[in-house]
């Protein structure tokens, strides 16, 4: 049968909905920010967006804290890798997930070395978020 949401309710089970979590989206592309924001809003209402690594660092330095930071790699002013290193140096313990449009295999080592917990090719999808969340829930 037709109807909005008919086939979406199954795939929209919220994993870990008992546990609220906050996310920060760091990406210079407004299209990606919009998509990732809508995607994550299926899982949590606590979402903030910034458009480069420096804004992310400044935000955390001013006292904001997040459970998960989705960090784009290629950004002006401060790249994702630089921002990750700075955040780790500041003592930020959030889960940092790298998001990149480049070939993932060659970048994985860079990401892990910088202090990221995980990385994905963009754009993120519902499946990727679900698998990320179930991994994080397992580790908690």
């Amino acid at each position, binding site marked *: 049968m*037709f*109807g*909005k*949401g*008919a*086939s*979406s309710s199954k*795939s*929209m089970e919220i994993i870990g909905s008992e546990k609220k979590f906050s996310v920060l989206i760091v990406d210079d*592309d*407004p*299209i*990606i920010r*919009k*998509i990732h924001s*809508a*995607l994550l*809003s*299926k899982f949590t209402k606590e979402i903030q967006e910034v458009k480069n690594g420096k804004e992310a660092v400044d935000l955390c330095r001013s006292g904001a804290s997040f459970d998960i930071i989705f960090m784009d790699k*290629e950004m002006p002013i401060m790249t994702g890798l630089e921002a990750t290193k700075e955040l780790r140096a500041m003592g930020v313990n959030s889960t940092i997930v790298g998001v990149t*449009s480049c070939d993932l295999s060659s970048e994985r080592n860079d990401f892990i070395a910088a202090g990221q917990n995980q990385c994905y090719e*963009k*754009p993120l*999808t*519902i499946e990727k978020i679900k698998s990320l969340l179930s991994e994080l829930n397992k580790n908690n």
Partner: protein
Amino acid sequence: MEVGQMQRRLIEYTKSLFMEGILDDQFLQLQQLQDESNPDFVVEVVSLFFQDAERLLNDITSALDQQSVDFPKVDAHVHQLKGSSASVGAQRVKNGCIAFRNFCEEQNVDGSLRCLQQIKQEYYHVKNKLEALFRLEQQIVAAGGSVPMMELSF
């Protein structure tokens, strides 16, 4: 035309865009993100893509028109276009960008110009198709129906 017919027509039309490789799964992801709290999500994202793409295509055209082409700059624009086309599911545009980057690496002006032409064609093609798709949706809603959801596998 009654609502059921329009809905079937929309489904067939959307399916054909996937069969022809004009759209890929990412477009379905966008549709999944649309809901009552975000009712115009797909149109909004696609509109951002149109704006972005047209700006980038203009920038690439100007850059290739220079006496001495700044290939790293062209590559950066193409990289951006690849990213935004990938994020809305505009598969052929994305693939065109992948090919284009090879020509940039080789600093091949003729190859780049040909590629640009190709990408422009694919872009206007997907733009027309998506605008037609949105019009079909509007007609359904105007007639009091709801827009049918595509299944992820078909």
